């Protein structure tokens, strides 16, 4: 196992280096930089730009140097925990991200819990009651959930709540708490608003997980060892939990890889539609305004979490089910 961990870590390093190069290149692909866009905006509105300050920032963050030097400067900062400076917010990136990170964590963890709590029993029920009317109904609802884009569901809910109940369900709390420090009433307000984004963001993932769990469990239930155990008179529930369900859980474990970055990024488009103060809309703004350090460092942070997540899920799979699994039917 130690050998496996070491090999996996050694694969992660070049992966992260490659991702950092791709992120840096893509962010620098559009012509100009944040400052040229900023100066152009000021000139178009007839205002004068503080060129001295802009030149100082350009020199400090190496915008006047070749691209490869800028890349080294950026990566060196990341290695030392410095994510750079957000020119749009006039704050270090750590501070800009930190303000929204808590809200993103709350929404994302609630969504993940919702997905698992709803998908798990429904998936098991659907598989163990295959082709019953309830299985057909749940399958229909699952496909409906898969086919509906989350932002569309958000728009429909916003419209219905406004037209029929006369309330606004956007945001994560009542407007009066937005800039207030945390208090019990603010927590209650967040709790009251939370279920809507959770249902909106979690529906597609829940439907997808139900389908996968059902399919995997059906595969396992038809295997010979299950038939043998049934023939030996093992109780159905004990039989279900002993092996088939454990084997069918592999996709849940594999999903850990995508969970970590999801927790941080939030659902960007749904957050924009529902005015959620999460990191998704912030990333979109940063990309639009070429706020290089904010966008690049945040994307790199998400990439790091993705790589760590895949590493954790691979490790969990290696511990739980270290079978030979060769694709294309080849064995060695």
């Amino acid at each position: 196992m130690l050998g496996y961990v070491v090999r996996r870590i050694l694969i992660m390093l070049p992966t992260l280096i490659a991702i950092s190069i791709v992120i840096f290149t893509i962010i620098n692909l559009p012509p100009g930089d944040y400052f040229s866009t900023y100066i152009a905006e000021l000139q178009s509105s007839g205002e004068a730009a503080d060129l001295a300050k802009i030149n100082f920032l350009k020199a400090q963050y190496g915008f006047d140097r070749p691209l490869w030097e800028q890349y080294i400067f950026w990566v060196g900062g990341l290695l030392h925990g410095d994510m750079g400076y957000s020119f749009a917010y006039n704050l270090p990136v750590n501070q800009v991200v930190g303000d929204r990170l808590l809200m993103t964590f709350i929404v994302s963890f609630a969504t993940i819990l919702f997905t698992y709590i709803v998908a798990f029993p429904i998936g098991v029920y659907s598989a163990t009651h295959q082709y019953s009317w309830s299985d057909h109904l749940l399958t229909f609802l699952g496909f409906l959930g898969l086919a509906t884009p989350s932002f569309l569901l958000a728009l429909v809910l916003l419209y219905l709540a406004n037209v029929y109940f006369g309330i606004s369900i956007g945001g994560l709390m009542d407007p009066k708490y937005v800039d207030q420090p945390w208090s019990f009433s603010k927590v209650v307000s967040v709790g009251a608003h939370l279920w809507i984004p959770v249902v909106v963001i979690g529906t597609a993932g829940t439907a997808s997980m139900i389908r996968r769990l059902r399919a995997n469990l059906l595969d396992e239930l038809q295997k010979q060892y299950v038939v043998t155990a049934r023939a030996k008179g093992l109780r159905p529930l004990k039989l279900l939990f002993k092996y088939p369900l454990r084997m069918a859980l592999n996709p849940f474990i594999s999903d850990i890889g995508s969970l970590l970055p999801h927790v941080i990024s939030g659902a960007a488009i749904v957050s924009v539609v529902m005015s959620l103060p999460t990191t998704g809309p912030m990333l979109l703004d940063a990309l639009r305004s070429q706020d290089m350090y904010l966008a690049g460092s945040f994307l790199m942070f998400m990439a790091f979490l993705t790589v760590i997540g895949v590493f954790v899920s691979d490790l969990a799979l290696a511990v739980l089910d270290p079978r030979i699994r060769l694709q294309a039917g080849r064995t060695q």
Partner: protein
Amino acid sequence: MTRHTYPVPALFGDYLRAAAGLIPAVAVPAIAPVGIFEATLLGGVALLFAAFGIRTALRQFTCIEVTAAALRVSGALRTKISWDELDRMRLAYYSTRRDGRDGWMQLELRSGWSTLRVDSRIIGFSELVTSSAQAAAMRGLQLDPATSANLQVLGIERRAVMAPSRELAAGGAE
């Protein structure tokens, strides 16, 4: 009696891996100051790769002797597992590739407090697995689904259960 050792060329890659992880993990904080989070992360990585390097060195000087009665490990980490006291056998397969190819196997044997882990680069690995599977069959040990599946892929389980070697049968009867 059979003797099993790790061939040095097979361990060369592991020494390189240990160095490839250890050198940058030590060099980065040595070149420039790092934050507490980065220092903890790099320190953990350095410890892990150092442990891997030490284990590789220990493996280079390890020799496993398999007899009808027991399995003896000589070298820095001496241990002995009697076949008639075998408590657990696990055969795992690991691969870092998505398609599952180019992987390696690890055999884990446990008897009381003694545990032995051997990977498939050791000379005569399949004989070692066959002997272990025969001993596990004679002891009536329950193998986990992954071990059973891996044994089946190697074509060992059926042979082991149906025709335990005369040598091992004699040892098990002692």
